[in-house]
């Protein structure tokens, strides 16, 4: 009896220790050598990264968001085989002998909270981080200006204009914007239009920098029964829910207005109820007459980027949903891109994309910096453009063959990337964005007038600021 009891206890003890070991072990093969890694990091500081220095035992974990795969895969849009990250990993490791780079890939869905969890628990060294302003304020990110200053090989001139400025943020104890991230994935907002519909209606294409009046006039002309096909056409469409706040802010910018001022929460002053915002929202209400039903629930534009498209102009579009999908549908030459509404300084539209940042508690900061430079080099930037259906952030894009193939859509996209409102709206992921979005929806659905809606948005946003 005693034997059985002891055997049972032994088995349980073994199981328990296995669970503990499994839970505490790292999936990093070199995880146990972190001390060595730190020492080597010191050596790395003394020597330059180039020239076959010793990175033995150093491992960095790189977090990426979106359509990245380690292995080769088939693109669901184009049907073409796309190369996996393994190729990038191999190249980086061959250029940095002894170093290991590992990837943590996550979907866009819920990336903010997942990034927060990873950052808090020190899971990765380098992060792709669209919400950089929130994380920099928590003191979790390494300031990058000293790294840029000390690295003679690196220059921020490689990036498309305004990209560096767009990602500047405030640290926990700073009153001035600082560099916490390097532009990794570019993005832009622009206006797209269907040239074929314009031709069928006999309407002149949109100018490069259209005004609100031009859009309204041409949208009105193209709403109704198409004179050639006999189909019902709509002049314009915009998303009336999720991104409607940004569409409205851009309309205000186009009239010389702005969302407000400040960057730190205690300095921010909203101007959601400015005259430009009121007239912008009234303009959207007017434009609704030339749009199909359902734009407040993201419906009505199902035929866009198909051969049966029935919409002339699309406001507030992005390159990810436009360029490659258009070419995949053999519509590359049919789609045109015009710039969003700009102010007198030629600036306007939401700044978007993804920077890469370094965790403040990274144990291998030298290697992490090496990765950041590598990720913004032509090698990786070309990879994200050609294989991951993402926009590069470097000026050299204009010299690539792959750019030349889609130049008619890429050229205005790069232009749009260089003229957004910077820095990024600090409230873009916070409560004021949802307050303003809900009020735009309320106006679009007739619940409130434009004036009442923006006044309510202003009041609620200010109250939210005061209660922070």
């Amino acid at each position, binding site marked *: 009896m005693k034997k059985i009891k002891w055997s049972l206890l032994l088995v349980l003890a073994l199981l328990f220790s296995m669970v503990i070991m499994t839970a505490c072990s790292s999936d990093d093969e070199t995880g146990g050598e972190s001390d060595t890694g730190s020492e080597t990091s010191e050596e790395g500081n003394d020597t330059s990264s180039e020239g076959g220095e010793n990175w033995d035992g150093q491992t960095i974990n790189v977090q990426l968001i979106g359509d990245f795969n380690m292995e080769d895969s088939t693109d669901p849009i184009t049907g073409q085989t796309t190369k996996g990250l393994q190729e990038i990993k191999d190249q980086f490791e061959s250029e940095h002998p002894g170093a290991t780079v590992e990837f943590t890939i996550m979907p866009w869905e819920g990336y*903010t909270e997942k990034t*927060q969890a990873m950052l808090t628990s020190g899971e990765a060294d380098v992060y792709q981080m669209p919400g950089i302003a929130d994380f920099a304020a928590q003191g979790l990110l390494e300031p990058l200006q000293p790294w840029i200053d000390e690295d003679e090989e690196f220059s921020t001139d490689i990036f498309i204009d305004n990209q560096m400025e767009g990602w500047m943020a405030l640290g926990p104890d700073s009153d001035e914007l600082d560099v916490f991230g390097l532009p990794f994935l570019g993005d832009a907002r622009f206006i797209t239009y269907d040239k074929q519909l314009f031709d069928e209606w006999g309407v002149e294409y949109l100018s490069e920098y259209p005004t609100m009046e031009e859009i309204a006039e041409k949208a009105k002309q193209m709403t109704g029964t198409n004179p050639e096909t006999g189909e019902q056409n709509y002049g314009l469409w915009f998303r009336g829910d999720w991104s409607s706040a940004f569409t409205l802010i851009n309309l205000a910018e186009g009239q010389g207005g702005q969302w407000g001022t400040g960057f730190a929460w205690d300095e921010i002053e909203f101007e959601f109820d400015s005259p430009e915002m009121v007239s912008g929202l009234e303009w959207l209400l007017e434009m609704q007459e030339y749009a199909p039903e359902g734009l407040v629930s993201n419906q009505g534009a199902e035929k866009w980027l198909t051969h049966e498209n029935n919409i002339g102009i699309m406001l507030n579009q992005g390159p990810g949903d436009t360029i490659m999908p258009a070419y995949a549908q053999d519509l590359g030459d049919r789609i045109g891109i015009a710039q969003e509404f700009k102010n007198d300084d030629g600036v306007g539209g939401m700044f978007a994309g993804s920077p890469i940042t370094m965790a403040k508690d990274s144990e291998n900061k030298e290697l992490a910096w090496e990765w950041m430079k590598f990720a913004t080099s032509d090698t990786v930037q070309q990879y994200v453009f050609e294989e991951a259906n993402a926009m590069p952030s470097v000026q050299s894009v204009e010299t690539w063959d792959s750019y030349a193939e889609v130049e008619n859509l890429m050229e205005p996209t790069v232009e749009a990337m260089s003229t957004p409102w910077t820095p990024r709206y600090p409230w873009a992921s916070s*409560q004021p964005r949802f307050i303003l979005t*809900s*009020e735009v929806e309320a106006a679009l659905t007739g619940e409130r007038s434009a004036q009442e809606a923006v006044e309510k948005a202003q009041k609620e946003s200010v109250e939210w600021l005061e209660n922070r």
Partner: protein
Amino acid sequence: MNKENMKADTTVLPSEDVTTIKQKKRKATFTWYLFLLPSFIGILLFMVYPIVESFRLSFYQSNGTIETFTGLSNFQLVLTSATFWNTVWNTFFIAFFQIALTIPLGFIFASMINSVRRGQNFFKVIYFLPNVTSIVAAAMIFQFVLHPEMGVVNYALDAVGLPTSTWFSDPSTSKWGVILLAVWHWIGFVIIICLANLQAISPEMYEAARIDGASKIQQWLFITIPNMSGTFAFLLITGWIGGLQRFNEVYVLGGPNGSPARSIQTMGAFIYERGFTGFEFGIASAATYIMFIIILIFTFINLKVSKMNL
């Protein structure tokens, strides 16, 4: 074995037997505790700890890393927020009509299925299918079903000469779109539960009623319905708890802020919006506890009203 040996055995055994039974009982109890231990640790780690931590967070202003003690101000902010009370209204509105429509409809369908002689299993499967469909997938399909221009519902309404609707694009109809989806998704479960109860009612009661001259309707009203009270109470309570926790479908249909114009934002979506899109974990935790208290009070009332004993 000879008789003497047997005698000797019987004189020794009683005291040993008593000890052995005690030991066995203790060992058996110990073994069951051991088996319970893994799940108990899991509950402690993944349920009790988050509940306690969330309670602690509700007294702090927290973005996940930086925390400041703010006392009851999070509760005050939530309880004085018009947006929060709008989500309470939306949640109760959708849950009320889901329950008010689904339980009677499900019971009627179950009664009809119970009456047919052939194909009962076929109907059970057909009606139960929506319930096994992912609510996320179903919500996406419903966006097309209730599409203002291409939707099959508007097509049908138009075909019979009734006015069409823009459904999810109008705050006054979007809640009804969610209710339709919720009814469609839950009715299969209600039918199966009702059917189980219907088949448990003694046929002798119906036989006696028939002898007394009761009509089919009278049998249904005075035998079937009174015998279903326990099932109705169960469906009412589980329906309300599920309805008050609604999140998945409204998140798919209207995002975290319940577009359009927060018309379908539920309490669960409010918590998600504040917690996971704005890093306001303190507010989200306080809202979670307020939602818990609302559900607790409402379930208590339901238990009293339905006279259901737990």
